[in-house]
């Protein structure tokens, strides 16, 4: 029987790469084969070279396809419709006409003001990620056209400390709202986050009020706010602007909730029912307006903006 794996969303907030459930797999295999000789025995001359990242395996159905195929399918598994986790770059490409958009507020960067040190110093962690990626923080904002209609989109990047909400996300979010009000544009936020950033302590908690206050202003200006929740969206995001959309929408099969599944399991000592905290579950309980497949996303957003504006 296939065991449903409870993802540890919180572990992504550490900013370290997490290898999922490796141990479990090893244990399952143990009794069948025994390695007689240690090490790799194929000589280097016989080694076949494959470029890195050419193939991709679906974590849901194990379907294997080339990365190119997957990209053409907007990172949706051609076999089981599993929506792979993607970042702001990919979402902007999916949404904006001809991939043309203007990035906004890129000049804002995280820093360590509290000298927070867990297993690593926060500033060091930031420097490392800044060196490794082009991302400056866990959210990017851009303005561009979706089927000819202008819109501001703020999108999170899960790879940056689990898409965690800190001062920079709060500030970018706020400035994006100001931009929308100034230019009378609709606002869309694509959430993908484990929650608040612990390394910024209470400052990250205060972002919940900061962003909500700006949403109040957006609401007073009668501009639409679309909140799209993708896999995963937890903690401080769902306890603030994630759930406050004029419309709350989600991608299929996304895990969305306040407390992470591991925490709930530990607190209640109960097994979680299948499909718990998936977008379909949230739709059923009345917290989403609809679920949208990534392939229809652009159409749907354009359609919504038209409906709001005419």
């Amino acid at each position: 029987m296939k065991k449903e794996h409870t993802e540890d969303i919180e572990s992504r907030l550490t900013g370290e790469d997490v290898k999922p459930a490796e141990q479990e797999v090893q244990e399952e295999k143990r009794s069948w084969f025994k390695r007689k000789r240690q090490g790799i025995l194929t000589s280097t001359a016989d080694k076949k070279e494959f470029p890195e990242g050419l193939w991709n395996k679906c974590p849901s159905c194990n379907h294997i396809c080339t990365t190119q195929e997957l990209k053409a399918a907007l990172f949706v598994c051609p076999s089981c419709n599993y929506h792979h986790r993607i970042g702001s770059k990919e979402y902007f490409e999916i949404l904006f006409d001809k991939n043309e958009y203007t990035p906004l507020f890129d000049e804002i960067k995280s820093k360590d003001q509290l000298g927070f040190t867990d297993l690593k110093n926060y500033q060091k962690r930031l420097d490392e990620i800044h060196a490794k990626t082009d991302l400056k923080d866990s959210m990017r904002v851009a303005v561009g056209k979706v089927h000819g209609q202008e819109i501001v989109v703020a999108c999170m990047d899960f790879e940056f400390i689990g898409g965690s909400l800190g001062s920079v996300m709060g500030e970018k979010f706020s400035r994006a709202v100001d931009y929308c009000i100034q230019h009378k544009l609709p606002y869309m936020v694509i959430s993908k986050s484990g929650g608040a950033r612990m390394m910024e302590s209470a400052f990250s908690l205060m972002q919940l009020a900061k962003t909500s206050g700006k949403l109040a202003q957006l609401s007073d200006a009668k501009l639409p706010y679309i909140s799209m929740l993708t896999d995963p969206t937890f903690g401080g995001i769902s306890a603030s602007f994630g759930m406050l959309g004029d419309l709350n929408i989600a991608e299929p099969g996304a895990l969305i909730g306040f407390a992470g599944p591991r925490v709930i399991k530990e607190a209640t000592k109960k097994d979680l029912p299948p499909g718990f905290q998936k977008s379909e579950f949230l739709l059923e309980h009345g917290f989403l307006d609809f679920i949208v497949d990534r392939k229809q996303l652009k159409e749907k957003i354009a359609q919504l903006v038209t409906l709001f504006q005419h």
Partner: protein
Amino acid sequence: MPQYPNRQFLEFEQPIKELYEQIEATKKLAEKNPKVDYSNTIQQLYASIDEKRKEITTSLSPWQRVQLSRHPDRPYTLKYIDKMCTNFIELHGDRNVKDDKAMVGGFAMMDGETVMIIGQQKGINTKARQLRNFGMANPEGYRKALRLMKLAEKFNKAVISLIDTPGAFPGLEAEERGQGEAIARNIYEMIRLKVPVICCIIGEGASGGAFGIGVGDRTLMMENTWYTVISPESCSSILWRSWDKKEVAAEQLKLTATDMKGFGLVDEIVYEPDGGAHWDYDDAALRLKKSILQALHEVKDVDPLERVNQRIEKYGKMGFWEEVPANSLV
């Protein structure tokens, strides 16, 4: 407050317990030898207790503050309401699902004026703790609180919230009924509430669960409380991948009243009686009441729309970042 021997002592309060034991022993001696006058000795021991109380609170580590905020003898929301207000009428239910016992609230009179006072409630014994769900509210608790705040707004009464929770409840039903949405809605509505809102951390201020009733014009924080984005235990388990680093986590999170005041994230520290609020409920409540009335006095004459703008501005300023020219990063 409970009298010795019904009092409970934390590890760093043990010296006080020993003094109490000495007093008991001396009292017994006095009974046995009625001819000897022990009153001086006993008086001295009581004086030592007072001294120890003072000593203890001056040198606490962040983790010890956390422990003190969870002291089983500490006064909880209803105790403060009882000591600070008259004519309290508790109101129940979210008009939707049920009445959440972890969240209480109602109209009360404070210094001659009607206020709406709400807060999380912990239990005072095992049975009550279960009933109150250890002060962890479900969505209906937050929705009850919101209903009461809206009621206060309608009748132009100030809102006072007393915060003391280890977090919003992480349960199956809580998720089904939208724990995230309930807290989000409260934060959103509180920031635009037209009446004065004074928030007071009286015990534990754990993350979204606390903030769900924690947005206001002024935030007061009692001396031996903590307020931050996650409990030190959970922080330790996530960032250090071990439950044993809670002391370090408490230090790193800078969650004490002094830190929070230093950051400008709370407005005032309310100092507690020597040794902590559990040593003198009346005094603790009196001090809190004084600070609440002062805060109310400061904000009550502001125009409602201006009040909302000030609130949005106040929270808008919170955060830290650096700005670099966009092109220099590429």
